[in-house]
């Protein structure tokens, strides 16, 4: 692993984000607007919901919203780091340089970590000021959950890049669509028990389901959700490894069929 290669990818993206108002808005603006939306919904649900001391709607819904946003951001910043090279027709220069695939992925992951941490540090005090949400009320469990949403984002991000390599720049929409596809099946805002039993079995393989189910258990039961943390972590590792192998396979296919040149032509 050559850290200069990783630094090159990281440096390129830092400049890009720092300089671009639309990118800064994508980082901080969307989440702020959505916080208002989910905050108002939560306040309303609290007035009509059951008077159950265990049900802290603010903590339940808004912490789920924040963590889902972190997952989306981790995935989006990872995928967009690659898409940016495609959109700027620079991708050939990257693949013709001595950077290894692992270093490229590491660079994108680092960009994702920094962006996600920045957004987290930004949004949690605002959520506290507006809705008295103290995300640390969940305890230190938020650390493994946070790590897991980051890794889930990388897993999806790697697959999204593989799809763009295979199907060309017009497949970039998939990078934004995949998290949206996962949202209803990840039990972010409701428990897994609302799913039909078949769906409960199928969604078991989603790391995000275990993250959000575990967070809910911690909030409503006050229990340490070891099972959820272990399942989420294990599945995340499996998904990231499979995602990396998928990207490796797509790149080999692209080199065999000449698709890499198409990335700067479409």
């Amino acid at each position, binding site marked *: 692993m050559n850290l*200069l290669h990783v630094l090159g990818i990281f440096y390129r993206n830092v*400049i890009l984000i720092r300089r671009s108002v639309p990118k800064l808005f994508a980082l901080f603006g969307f989440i702020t607007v959505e916080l208002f939306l989910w905050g108002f919904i939560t306040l309303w649900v609290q007035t009509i919901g059951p008077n159950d001391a265990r049900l802290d709607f603010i903590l339940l819904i808004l912490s789920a919203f924040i963590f889902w946003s972190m997952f989306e951001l981790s995935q989006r910043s990872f995928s967009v780091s690659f898409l940016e090279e495609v959109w*700027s*027709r620079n991708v050939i220069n*990257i693949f013709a*340089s001595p950077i290894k695939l692992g270093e490229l992925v590491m660079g994108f992951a680092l960009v994702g970590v920094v962006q996600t941490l920045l957004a987290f540090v930004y949004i949690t005090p605002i959520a506290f000021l507006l809705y008295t949400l103290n995300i640390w009320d969940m305890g230190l469990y938020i650390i493994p959950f946070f790590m897991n949403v980051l890794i889930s984002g990388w897993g999806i991000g790697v697959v999204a890049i593989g799809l763009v390599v295979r199907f060309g720049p017009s497949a970039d929409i998939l990078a934004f669509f995949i998290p949206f596809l996962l949202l209803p099946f990840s039990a972010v805002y409701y428990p897994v028990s609302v799913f039909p039993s078949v769906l409960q079995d199928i969604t078991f393989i989603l790391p995000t389901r275990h993250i959000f189910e575990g967070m809910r258990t911690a909030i409503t039961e006050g229990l340490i959700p070891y099972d959820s943390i272990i399942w989420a972590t294990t599945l995340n590792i499996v998904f990231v490894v499979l995602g990396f192998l998928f990207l490796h396979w797509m790149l080999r296919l692209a080199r065999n069929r000449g698709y890499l*040149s198409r990335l700067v032509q479409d």
Partner: protein
Amino acid sequence: MSTIVSVSNLTKQYGSLTAVDHVSFEIREGEIVSLLGPNGAGKTTIIQMLLTLVSPSSGDIQIFGKALKEHREELLSMMNFTAPYSVLPYNLTTREALKVYSLLYGIRNYRERVSFLIDEFDLGWLANKKVGQLSSGEQMRIGIAKAFVNSPGLLLLDEPTASLDPAIARELRAKILKLVRKAGGAILWTSHNMREIEQVSDRIIFLSRGKIVADDSPDNLKNYFGEEDLEEIFISINREPLSKSS
């Protein structure tokens, strides 16, 4: 002189189309070899196979005595390229783009290297301008500077002066030759500018429909084909592929 590139029986097929057909050639240290041929002759495909952007269907590529397939990263760190279809990031300044590529090529003293390239290629007035705001000729100039971030032992130039005016093209050609000779490297050059090719090449490889149809020095080729200039040879080969390999 040691062999820098050794290509043997290189073939690339896309389904029923044979883009490159059993091509073999060598490039020696200090040599400037040009690939010439009509559109679709296989020049860019060969360059892209040397850059590992395209995998060969069969054949072997050795660079600096090592198999490209097995030593990809090591060999790419000793090579570089520029091509009009691959521009540098439009949203970075010239200085930033050169810094990014210095890092990607593992250059530890990247600050000094970037300053050197900015001076060497007279990019001072473009250093803090975004690449996307520059003309295509200026972008090409920066692309050529980028090709020298790692002082490459092998330089692949795919139509490097395509967007440049004649005066700047001449100046950059001289700079490219100076830097490559200083490093004791070699160049594989493609262009449709026959005068340029004649001026810079030690050897010319003519390609037609993926095959090598001639491989010799510019003077020997002119004698063999009985033509006064390369353009006439190009046209005759394009019309009716002949075969002449030294």
